[in-house]
């Protein structure tokens, strides 16, 4: 049974990878731009998946972290900094901010982090919009340069697309290593049964905090890539709407599944482009899909696929447990 699942998954993976590699030759520049956006958003979603899927915490601030990363990168690169240090700074700044934000909020129960991140996102958006001296306010920052790698500039749509793809691959690899490490085991424990995990010495608070901070850092890196992608940064994309969108992305794809964010980003980024004609109804349908999924299959589309490939779930005689609350 597990072997069949692995074969199916492996085939899907190989096909997707092949598609992604040859995509630039199949699409016009706009299509390649959309695919690049997909890759960048997936990185942000992977970060959020760490927070939500592995540590079980709702964060509504991912857009703020993407924004902070984007603005840091835009500000520095337009002043002449090379891309890499700007990107690194963006990631670290967001990691530290996430840590500082989560430290008080996660000491408490319930979903206080959700509210704190909601407030934080709103606050950060206001700063972006009002502090013209820093961020250019509603006028934004234009002419954000594309990065160059050892003298080879990535101005072209193709070149930058592969750059984004490479970044996504790196982030995926790093996340994979994280999930496979003892940290990953602790994450599963704290997601499944925080009370039991605590009694075994797992410091649930600290692991949750790290998951949140890492998720924020990845949001920052996503922003650092977003800036040179669109080459014009203004506050509008980083409002609460994006945070909600990223959250839904992770949930629809399958929170806690490694490839959930990839799938979710396809639904959230690529699908609307193909369904352009249904503009207004798209978001309604998306929201409806989330509600229905939550009722029947909270583990998202990948969870659904899992259920279909695995016959009748083996009865797990586990006791009623404290669901992460």
């Amino acid at each position, binding site marked *: 049974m597990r072997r069949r699942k692995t074969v199916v998954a492996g085939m899907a993976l190989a096909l997707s990878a092949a598609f992604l590699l040859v995509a630039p030759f199949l699409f016009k520049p706009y299509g390649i731009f959309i695919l690049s956006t997909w890759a960048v958003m997936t990185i942000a979603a992977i970060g959020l998946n760490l927070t939500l899927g592995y540590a079980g915490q709702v964060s509504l601030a991912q857009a703020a972290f993407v924004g902070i990363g984007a603005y840091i990168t835009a500000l520095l690169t337009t002043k002449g900094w090379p891309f890499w240090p700007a990107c690194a700074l963006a990631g670290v700044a967001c990691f530290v901010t996430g840590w500082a934000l989560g430290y008080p909020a996660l000491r408490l129960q319930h979903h206080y982090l959700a509210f*704190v991140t909601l407030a934080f996102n709103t606050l950060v958006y*206001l700063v972006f919009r009002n502090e013209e001296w820093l961020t250019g306010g509603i006028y934004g920052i234009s002419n954000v340069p594309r990065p160059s790698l050892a003298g080879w500039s990535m101005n072209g749509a193709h070149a930058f697309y592969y750059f984004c793809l490479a970044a996504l691959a790196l982030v995926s690899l790093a996340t994979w290593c994280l999930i496979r490490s003892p940290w990953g085991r602790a994450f599963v424990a704290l997601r499944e049964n925080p009370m039991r995990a605590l009694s075994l010495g797992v410091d649930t608070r600290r692991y949750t905090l790290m998951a949140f901070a890492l998720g924020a850092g990845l949001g920052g890196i996503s922003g650092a890539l977003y800036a040179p992608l669109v080459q014009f940064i203004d506050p509008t994309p980083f409002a609460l709407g994006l945070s*909600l969108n990223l*959250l839904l992305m992770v949930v629809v794809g399958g929170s806690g599944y490694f490839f959930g964010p990839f799938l979710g980003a396809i639904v959230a980024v690529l699908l609307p482009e193909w369904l352009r004609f249904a503009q207004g109804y798209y978001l309604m349908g998306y*929201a*409806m899909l*989330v509600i229905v999924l939550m009722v029947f299959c909270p583990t998202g589309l990948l969870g659904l696929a899992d259920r279909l490939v695995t016959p009748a779930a083996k009865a797990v005689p586990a006791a009623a447990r404290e*669901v992460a609350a």
Partner: protein
Amino acid sequence: MLADILQLFVAGLATGGIYALAAIGFTLLWQTSQTINFAQGEFVMLPAFFVLIGMGFFGLPFWAAVLVGVAVSILTLGLMFKKLMVDPMLHHGVLPLVIATIGLAILMKETVREFYGADAWPFPPLAAATNVTVFGAAFAVQSLVVLGISIAAVAALQLFLNKTRTGRCMQATAQNPTVARLLGVPVERMILYTFLINAALVALASLLITPIYLAKFTNGELLGLYAFIAAIIGGFNQVRGAIVGGLLLGVLDNFTAVYISTQYRLVVPLLFLIVIILFRPQGLLGRVEERTV
């Protein structure tokens, strides 16, 4: 000078009363059924549109439309919300429900935008837009009426919860459903009542606030945020806390807008929230929670 401050204070209390109504419902839902309703803001946004549809589409006079609107709200935001969304999901735990209500908020917003429109429509106020002068300070009659109605609603609710048998059963359910069940309280029905009461509260809040904010599909964002903050500041496990939180927030909001900056109006409540969470996480009036994890 004093007159201005007094005016602002009363106006702040008025909007605060509305926030309190939304916050109370929110707190009640959490207490009795562990439901965190992220769509609470949209719940306050929607009833006004029911009334507008009643007047515009069905040609009803205002007060008839109000009655119909409130009834429809209680039916959809109370009964249907519970039966169709909350009940099927409760056994999955808290997290899927939180996410589902986030989806619901988006759904409600987009449905209004798509089927009614993206503009801001005027909404008939419950009192004339005149002023009354007391001790040399001019107070908007509307503010006083709003404040009066909010106080009356909250007082009625408190009376109901404390003095009637059903109300006390609801309180028992909120404090400890298991023990309540053992004592013979019809817990499921009590929880249903909570949802219905919440629907009534948000409908009332909608009637009170829409004349001020105008009927717009984005109203829920800000109102929801204020409801959450009021509930947490006041103390998530106390109805009284939601009242205090709401009033405090309304006053703070008003004073910030005038004396600090309209652009950063949200900053003060947000900072207040963070300060409370840091230094008094159980809220101003809340009890310290039993640690379970």
